[in-house]
């Protein structure tokens, strides 16, 4: 949407999650919305970058109530207490911030975290601006930007409806080595490969691992990806934390992302409220200008599907109770 179109919705008191670059978000009037910086989108016309458009997820006609809450890294643990009895929460977290790391490491321990959908994404910037400009969230009610706070839009649903969160992940565990890590974290030096202690960076080099492929953990059937950010001086950094003692395997390669993606996305998107996909899928699969079906949303620096995941599409739906 264009800026005037979005501001018209704001004036009409719409409840929204907005994604755009920082300059655009700064021009949106105060209202019942939260925003995150990101200029990459999966549009109905295909993957694109835009410095003047806003991606709008309008929840107004779906929810019976909503509240916006900001959190610092100490308060975030209490996020689940702010939810409605029936509903969902949409969380935006600024990329590369302390709260990004805190969230990812602690979210599994949030009380009742799996009791209601926790959807969201990690905010980002133009890839050319990484290290120069910090990703941010924006509180629409106050008009304030933050690069060290997370923001949630907690939404209440009428009792006739319920929310459901799914992921679409093209990656499956390959049939290679079993890899575990002695500590949880966004980086690792040591690992265990089939029970043998190794330097993880050495393992990657010796086995000529394609580091565009994520590590994949099997969470009782859900494939959860951890992507490799860089290998530097013997230390391997990740875009989401590896979990101590969780079993990982490198993913099987995906031959044709667009074709495989279209096969996996839901046949009907009538109940879909919102989605987000990973910037790494945009980059590694060269999705600019390529149509990936009816699901639209931002390409983000990390997807939240209860926990932080990588190279994954998160999809939130709302359905009627039968």
């Amino acid at each position, binding site marked *: 949407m264009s800026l005037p179109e979005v501001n018209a919705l704001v004036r009409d008191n719409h409840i929204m999650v907005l994604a755009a670059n920082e300059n655009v978000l700064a021009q949106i009037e105060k209202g019942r919305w939260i925003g995150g910086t990101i200029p990459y989108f999966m549009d109905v016309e295909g993957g694109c970058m835009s410095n003047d458009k806003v991606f709008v997820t309008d929840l107004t006609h779906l929810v019976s109530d909503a509240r916006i809450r900001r959190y610092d890294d100490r308060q975030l643990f209490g996020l689940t207490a702010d939810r409605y009895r029936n509903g969902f929460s949409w969380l935006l977290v600024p990329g590369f911030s302390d709260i990004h790391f805190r969230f990812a490491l602690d979210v599994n321990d949030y009380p009742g975290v*799996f*009791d209601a959908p926790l959807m969201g994404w990690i905010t980002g910037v133009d890839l050319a601006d990484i290290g120069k400009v910090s990703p941010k969230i924006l509180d629409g009610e106050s008009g304030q930007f933050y690069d060290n706070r997370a923001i949630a839009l907690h939404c209440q649903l009428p009792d006739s409806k319920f929310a459901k969160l*799914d992921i679409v992940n093209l990656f499956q565990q390959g049939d290679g080595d079993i890899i575990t890590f002695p500590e949880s974290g966004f980086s690792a030096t040591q690992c265990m490969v089939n029970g043998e202690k190794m330097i993880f960076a050495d393992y990657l080099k010796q086995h000529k691992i394609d580091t565009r492929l994520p590590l994949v953990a099997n*969470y*009782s059937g*859900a494939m959860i990806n951890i992507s490799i950010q860089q290998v530097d001086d013997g230390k391997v950094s990740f875009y989401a934390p590896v979990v101590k*003692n969780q079993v990982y395997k490198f993913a099987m390669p995906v031959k044709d992302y667009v074709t495989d993606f279209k096969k996996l996305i839901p046949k009907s998107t009538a109940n879909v409220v919102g989605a987000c996909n990973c910037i790494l899928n945009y980059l590694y699969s060269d999705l600019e200008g390529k149509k990936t079906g009816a699901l639209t949303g931002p390409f983000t620096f990390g997807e939240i599907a*209860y926990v932080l995941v990588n190279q994954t599409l998160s999809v939130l739906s709302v359905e009627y*109770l039968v």
Partner: protein
Amino acid sequence: MIPNSSHQLWNDLLTEKHQPTLSSLSLQMKLNALKFAVKYNKISLDEAIEDLYRFCANNAHMYQKDVNTIFNLS
């Protein structure tokens, strides 16, 4: 209908003796978290069974299909 927490398959599910294919992401995540907690002695197996049972019972509209799969119900 959610089988009572005394049903053996809750135990088998958490100890990975029974590994059905589940479809609900939240149930998969919850189950994984509980298996981990039991494996590393954060909670007892009995506590995990009760927690998982309550989780499914409180959200039966979401998990009935998976519960049917777990317990071979039609």
